[in-house]
């Protein structure tokens, strides 16, 4: 497979309408980003008192957004890995876009995480003082490393003389992101004291989640960019990628099942599992309706149904997967904290600090805006990226030129 010729493919708009929509997306992103930054400033001035987070719900909506983006960033890079490492030409043509989206999402996620800190101005401390026993510190290293590796990888993909090395850079990125997503899962998996989290299944579960969410984002971005450029995506390519998304969604469902089944098996986890799956009010609703039905079963039906094979279906299915992802993370992160820590098994507990009680959480506008601001940052970065550098896959041109199947 040859690499792009000297003529860059950055945004050759087919129509004024396409270009207008492109800029509209960019402007909308910038607007939301500005609102997110304003929200972060507001939180910084007044403290976290203006959020719904508390001493019980320590991590809230910003973390749902941040972890979504960080996990998806790793997954969206999978498209590139499949291309470079496993030599799939269709995917290889998409490696650059995949790398760009990964960097954009990672930037968005880390920005949210950073701006939610109690003392964001001390972020340099996180870069100068590492506690190497902390999985969190390892994640800081892994995230920074991913930026560097993807940048290098993109360079090998874009610079013709370095193309030969893209396979190795791609392999490095593949290994790195598997470690990274494992690490993200273990941020929770290492919390031995919490019923919701202390599970080794979280590591593979996060990897499956990253593949599904990343693929969903990639499919949406690809469809939007192709449409704005007035280009048609080869249906065969779309079908293959959509199927793969379906497989990933099914894999996540499987791990979620294992996670809850193992929890049900341990007597002291039963209470918690009942809370999350049945008695916990909004959380079971979000889990069953949001994650299982809307976010998994419907997309699976759409993606595998033989007769629903068009751009729109894939976009709808991918969007639902993302909606389901947010529902799942909300239940996992916030529901997991809402359930009280059990200090005295066999006793009913009560205190001024809400021992023994389900913690309430109502996210404030500021923290929601901060979360969306991060997504907007990712959007703006991607939009600017495809505008200034040749990130787009160009297989349709070759398809048109050669009149043959996808890619090669």
């Amino acid at each position, binding site marked *: 497979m040859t690499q792009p010729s000297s003529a860059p493919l950055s945004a050759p708009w087919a129509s004024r309408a396409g270009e207008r929509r492109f800029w509209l997306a960019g402007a909308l992103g910038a607007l939301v980003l500005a609102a997110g930054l304003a929200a972060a400033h507001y939180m910084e001035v007044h403290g976290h008192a203006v959020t719904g987070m*508390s*001493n019980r719900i320590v991590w809230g909506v910003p973390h749902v957004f941040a972890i979504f983006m960080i996990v998806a960033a790793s997954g969206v890079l999978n498209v590139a890995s499949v291309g470079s490492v496993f030599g799939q030409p269709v995917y290889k043509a998409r490696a650059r876009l995949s790398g760009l989206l990964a960097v954009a999402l990672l930037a968005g996620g880390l920005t949210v995480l950073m701006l939610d800190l109690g003392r964001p101005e001390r972020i340099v401390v996180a870069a100068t003082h590492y506690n190497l026993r902390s999985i*969190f510190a390892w994640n800081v290293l892994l995230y920074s490393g991913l930026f560097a590796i993807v940048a290098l990888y993109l360079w090998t993909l874009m610079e013709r003389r370095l193309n030969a090395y893209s396979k190795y850079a791609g392999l490095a990125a593949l290994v790195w992101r598997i470690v990274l997503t494992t690490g993200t899962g273990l941020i929770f998996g290492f919390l031995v*004291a919490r019923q919701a989290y202390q599970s080794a299944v979280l590591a593979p579960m996060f990897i499956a989640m990253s593949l599904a969410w990343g693929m969903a984002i990639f499919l949406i971005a690809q469809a939007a960019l192709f449409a704005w450029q007035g280009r048609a995506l080869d249906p065969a390519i779309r079908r293959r990628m959509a199927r793969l998304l379906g497989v990933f969604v099914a894999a996540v469902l499987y791990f979620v099942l294992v996670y809850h089944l193992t929890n049900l098996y341990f007597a002291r986890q039963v209470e918690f599992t009942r809370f999350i799956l049945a008695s916990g009010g909004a959380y079971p609703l979000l889990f069953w309706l949001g994650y299982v039905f809307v976010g998994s079963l419907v997309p699976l039906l759409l993606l595998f149904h033989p007769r629903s094979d068009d751009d729109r279906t894939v976009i709808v299915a991918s969007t639902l997967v993302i909606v389901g992802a947010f529902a799942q993370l909300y239940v996992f992160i916030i529901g997991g904290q809402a359930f009280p820590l059990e200090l005295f098994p066999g*006793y009913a507990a009560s205190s*001024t600090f809400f021992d023994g009680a389900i*913690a309430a959480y109502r996210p404030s506008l500021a923290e929601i805006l901060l979360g969306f601001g991060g997504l907007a940052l990712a959007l703006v970065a991607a939009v600017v990226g495809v505008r200034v550098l040749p990130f787009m896959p160009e297989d349709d041109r070759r398809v048109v030129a050669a009149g043959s199947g996808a890619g090669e």
Partner: protein
Amino acid sequence: MSEREPVERDQAPSPSRRGFLAAVAAAAAGVMIAPGIRLIELAAARPAGEPASGAVRWGLLIDTTRCARGCEDCVAACARENALERRGETSVAETQRPQWIRKIELKELATGRELSLPMMCQHCARPPCVDVCPTGASFKRADGIVLVDQHRCIGCRYCMMACPYQARSFVHEPLARQNPAVPRGKGCVEGCTLCVHRVDRGLAPACVAACAEAGHGAMLFGDLNDPASAISRRLREVASVEVRADLRLGTGVRYQGI
């Protein structure tokens, strides 16, 4: 000779300090519950310039049989000493108000037996908060006191996720009325310091002092490493447990009568 007095070591105590110590000693003498066992065990203040020693391990023994339901003397003393915002003194939500120590009311489900106890940082030997802290802000001092170095804390709250005892709070608002000896501020995580600023001066933590002064005597503070200390002697005599012993954290706070 477990009753070490700071005065013995300090060559030149200032008049104010001597008076103060006398008052505390008097209070301590008033709460002897059994011969040889004092509830406030006065430790010697470390001489100036000397770091905390690993030969000492500070600990607490809480006698739940002496801890009355609804009694909040320790909680009030902690808030006074550390200038924590009390209920109604701050506009933040009740779930956002810092609580370094709290009373937990318990009822055994199988028997209906009721008991009450204070819960705070358990000053673990192997503290999960220290393990997870990305910047090393959470740390364990040589003498076993688990603290947050607020100059290094970035406010990520991972330690709060990791603490099995829900013993840490996050400062959700800008503060202005701190105790000069207990700096605190917005955006950092904090928790029971075992009144490190008092312990370093040879005084017992405020909660322990208040509990003793009120005559409850439910809290015993001292050096777990010193076999002759009152707390060590009592621990040899009575049954006591760690909370969440299954996690094997080696807590410095132990409970009797659970």
